[in-house]
């Protein structure tokens, strides 16, 4: 009895989450596309905004490294550098 309702709700979740995430408008700057593609695979980009602006270069670098080493993000060394640079420049500690 309850199941059709739940399935209906699930369909709504899927569309809603995507629609809502489009509202996370990261600052346009070099490296943004890589951030959207790499980070956005596993988590919404509001994580980046919410973790600003208090992280130094060292801390952002550690976060990117953690995503690769601990969470298995398939990001090349070159892309990781570009991503860190974008995060430090646009969301780093002033």
């Amino acid at each position: 009895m309850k199941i059709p309702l739940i399935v209906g709700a699930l369909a709504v979740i899927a569309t809603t989450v995507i629609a809502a995430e489009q509202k996370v408008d990261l600052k346009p700057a070099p490296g943004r596309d890589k951030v959207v593609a790499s980070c956005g695979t596993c988590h919404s980009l509001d994580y980046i905004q919410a973790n600003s602006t208090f992280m130094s270069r060292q801390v952002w670098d550690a976060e990117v490294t953690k995503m690769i080493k601990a969470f298995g993000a398939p990001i090349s060394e070159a892309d990781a550098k570009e991503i860190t640079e974008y995060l430090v420049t646009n969301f780093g500690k002033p």
Partner: protein
Amino acid sequence: MVSRRAFLKTTGGLVLVSGGTWMSGDAHAAAPSMGPPELPDGTVAASVMEALPGKVPLIKKSWRPPNYETPISYFNDVFTPNDAFYVRYHLSNIPEVAAATWRVKVGGEAAATPLELSLDDLRRNYDSVEIAAVNQCSGNRRGMFEPHVPGVEWGLGAMGNAKWKGVRLRDILGKAGVRKDAVEIVFDGADSAVIPGTPDFVKSIPAWKALDENTLVAYEMNGAPLPHWNGFPARIVVPGWTGTYWMKHVTSINAVTKPFDGFWVKSAYRIPRGKFPLIDRFVTQETDVNTPITEMVVNSLITNITSGESVSAGRPLDIKGIAWDGGYGIARVEVSVDGGQSWRSAALGQDYGRFSFRPWSYRFTPAERGNVTVMAKATNRNGATQTFEIIANPAGYHHNVVQRVTLVVA
């Protein structure tokens, strides 16, 4: 439960509250706060009030995985409504679990007679118990750490109190023939990672804690089935310990003879050794420098006033709040209305058991115009109390700094 129609109203980016349940009787809810002033600016900017299906609007901390915080006004009630209970996930693949086909496998190398249980098995073949207990995220108030630490930047509401009904885990482990050589019990849930390289969210607890009479496999919360977002159809309940061990949508329970070495126990949810006045230890997972987080530290929250609010001189004001700890019970709550110079005992409200929020209240009449700083400090039956300075730790856990709420007396 919020109807689908009501939910759709929230999806345009505007939050239209249709039920009225969380607006009624609370002046603060009309202009919901995104959290305390200590939060990072970026956190506040990224927060919106948003309703997940079946939930009232909560403070959205992240869309995916879903992390949603309970607004403080709900803590004026001892029990947190299911539809306002906070939501916390690490991984983004969260299936809708069908009650009819859900099973939990109980086994592991230290179980002589492995078994598989349906929801009906749990409801019909085992004694049921109900326990009032606080579920609090280890990182509740992380956003208030100074200096800030990375993570989900929680404010005050990554917690809730509920009556959890279910089966004692020890009864299930007994039926599975768990032997004395079991050192830990390992839990997995139905949620999973997006990419293969991400460690699945799997947790373990010491065997002694799993065999504690208060540790449950719960299928009801406040008299209703668990909400999807809080672990439907069944979750582990570990009263006194932080929420990280309360596995949602639990699908396997394994008794093991060697310490579990998964990421979420071995590397995550760790606190430095010797910094917190805790009693429960997770010895099989301790290293020279750190140890898994265990029980909650003693804490309190002032729930019915907020900083900057105006009150009238000469008119009695009832300050309300809650206090809780890792399961020893609250002995007293003291309130200061002079910024911490002097303290007086608050009146403790009904006792729903040592794992529950304990309500308290304190009446005072502000005499003179100007600012008044109200503080509350809880002490548990072990004599442990709240701190005035943050105890720094890398992941931002166990924040129990005494709150300061400054009122304007006019």
